[in-house]
């Protein structure tokens, strides 16, 4: 797991350098990129943190980069920093998923507030993703019977109904269910329902 960083994508060398220095002084991890292409070449899915993105750059514009990041399923929150703060640009940036839109010259408080918000949202998203992944891993460790019981219980069936469906005794269902809940580290049925919902929302459909 890498440390959360601020990725500064800015073609102006002095702006990039000064922001890196300032973030460094705040004990934040930061990396600079001179163009959208440089960043696209370097970025890895496991990177965490947020992006400070200039809109007008040679080569790909900030807006194009935003679109390409979405396409690549790289969900680092994006904070726009621009010297051309017009409404149309801001609207386009927000539509492409930017979390904030700052105009140069930057105000320090606003910059750090935006960075903090972006990092926080990235952390939350990652925590949620981590929880889902952990749950998925636990589901994978269930035996076939336990998994069958899990689906039926998650659908809201009573023990008796499950027993009929699987053609086993209710007593046996009790045992499978207890073992399944233990392996999934869950205590109550509603927790199970919620966890499976989260899995589905994330676009994953476990067998």
């Amino acid at each position: 797991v890498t440390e959360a960083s601020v990725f500064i994508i800015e073609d102006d060398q002095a702006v990039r350098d000064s922001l890196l220095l300032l973030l460094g002084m705040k004990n934040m991890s930061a990396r600079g990129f001179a163009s959208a292409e440089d960043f696209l070449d370097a970025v890895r899915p496991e990177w965490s943190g947020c992006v400070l993105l200039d809109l007008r750059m040679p080569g790909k514009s900030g807006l194009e980069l935003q679109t390409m990041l979405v396409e690549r399923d790289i969900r680092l929150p994006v904070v726009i920093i621009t010297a051309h703060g017009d409404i149309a640009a801001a609207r386009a940036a927000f539509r492409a998923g930017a979390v904030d839109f700052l105009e140069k010259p930057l105000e320090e408080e606003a910059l750090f507030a935006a960075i903090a918000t972006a990092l926080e949202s990235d952390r939350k998203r990652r925590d949620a993703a981590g929880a889902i992944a952990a749950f998925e891993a636990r589901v994978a460790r269930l035996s076939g019977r336990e998994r069958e019981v899990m689906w039926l219980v998650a659908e809201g069936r009573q023990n008796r109904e499950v027993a009929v469906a699987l053609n086993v005794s209710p007593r046996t269902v009790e045992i499978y269910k207890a073992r399944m809940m233990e392996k999934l580290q869950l205590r109550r049925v509603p927790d199970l329902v919620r966890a499976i919902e989260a899995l589905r929302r994330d676009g994953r459909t476990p067998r």
Partner: protein
Amino acid sequence: MIVARRLATRCDGWVMTPLGHSVTSTAARGAAGRSALRYAGTGLSYVIAYVALDWISYIHPVAQLAITPWNPPPGLSLFLLLRFGLRYAPCLFVAAVAAELVVRGTAPPPLLVLLSSLLLTAGYTAAGALLAGPLRVGARLGEVRDVNRFVAVAIAAPAPIAVAFVGLHIGLGSLTVADFSHAVLQFWIGDALGIVVTTPLLLEFSMPRAEPRTRFDVELLFQAAATVAALWIVFGLQATDEFKFFYLLFLPLVWIAMRRGIRGAMAASLAVQLGLVAAAESVAEKGIVLWQLQLLMLALALTALYLGTAVSEREAARRSVAVRDAALHRALRMATAGELAAAVAHELNQPLTAIGAYVRACMMMSEDPGSAARIRETLGKTAAEVARAGEVIRNLRGFYRAGTGKRERIAPRALVDAVVESLGPRLAQHRITLDLEQTDDPASIEVDRIQMQTVLHNLLVNAVDALAARAEGERRIVVRLGRREGGAFACEIADNGPGIAPDVAGRLFEPFTSTKTDGMGLGLAMSRSIVEAHGGRLSLLDREADGTTFEIILPFETTETTP
């Protein structure tokens, strides 16, 4: 639109009366009363003026009737109807009766006065209605089109009126059948002449001035003198044929019309007509054939009217174009100012952002006593960004200052050296070799030092930026100083960068053209205007070899010592 304007001026006309009333009352009753008063005032003024004009022009009458060679009263009537409206038609009748009683002296038969006055009123009211109605001739004869219609009516209308008028008098026994053709001709031309001279003059001078006031000047004296001289030659010289030199009268008239437009032309026309009438009167016994003189007078009046209108029309068109041009230039300037402001904002925002971040960082560093070296380094970067912001401002100032510089005599070499020295660190940083080649020793040049340095600075910075695309160790700039034929000073700045794409080269010197992402695109535009303000030329040389070469040429006059 035109109709609306016409209506507006017409309404405006109603407001302005000879008695100077104004319509600002809100009470309908008061307004109605005032309106009636205004009507009475305007009508009375008209009747008095009509009688006076009739009395003055009552010369060479036919059979003691209102048939004279130069008859301005109908012109006054048409003016009244066109300027103040057809509702003044009854005044025409009053004026005609009054003129009969006052001017003709001997008491004429009441029936005849009544009938002939009715005839004149009906005839000229019809002419006025025709002009103001279907022909839509406004209260001002602004265009040649209006003049055409007016002249057509002014010449055609008196003919049937003349026939009816003379016929009436023959019928009632005050004229004989033998007088018919003679009387009709005299009436016709006399009234037509009176209308052509009087109505446009009164219309023009009753309206607010459309053209800038022409001041009384010496030319006016000469024009007046020329008019008098022409009149004197025509009538004063004891020539056997009085019309031999008549054409001379056209000269001052054309002169005045060309120089002073419709107002001058109409005033001159009136003056010449008065002079002609007076002169003809004084030499009447020499047997001038009246209707021939009348025709000549008519030709003179028409010439003045048309020429004056054409000149005024052209003047008005020129003025409206000038007004439009000024508005366009203002709009363009505003657009450019907006673009400039946006570009400048961007250019300043970048260094300001960096400066802000560096300063914040320095403040944090200052809490640690051991970081003096880091602070110094960061402050150095900050200073560089301050200089960058300053350069934006200096460029901008140079852009506006172009052409207003203070010249001084300076050696070209010193100029170049100063700029190269200021760029030294930048050249070193990018590992660029700069060679200075001097083929000849150009004399000192007389230029605005700061402006010329700005030009050289811009061109060199462009070269430095262009060389970023080239590998280190191959980056080279050559500055060549020399002379061209005629002693012109030449300075070439060449780099071996990637060159300029042909599609950009065409508009390279236009403002806001830039190949850089962080450029305003003002550098070259500004540089060119500075060089051109020095009488020189800045151009991109088209060379086979790769790279870019700019050439500054300053002319002989700038480079040589002027006494």
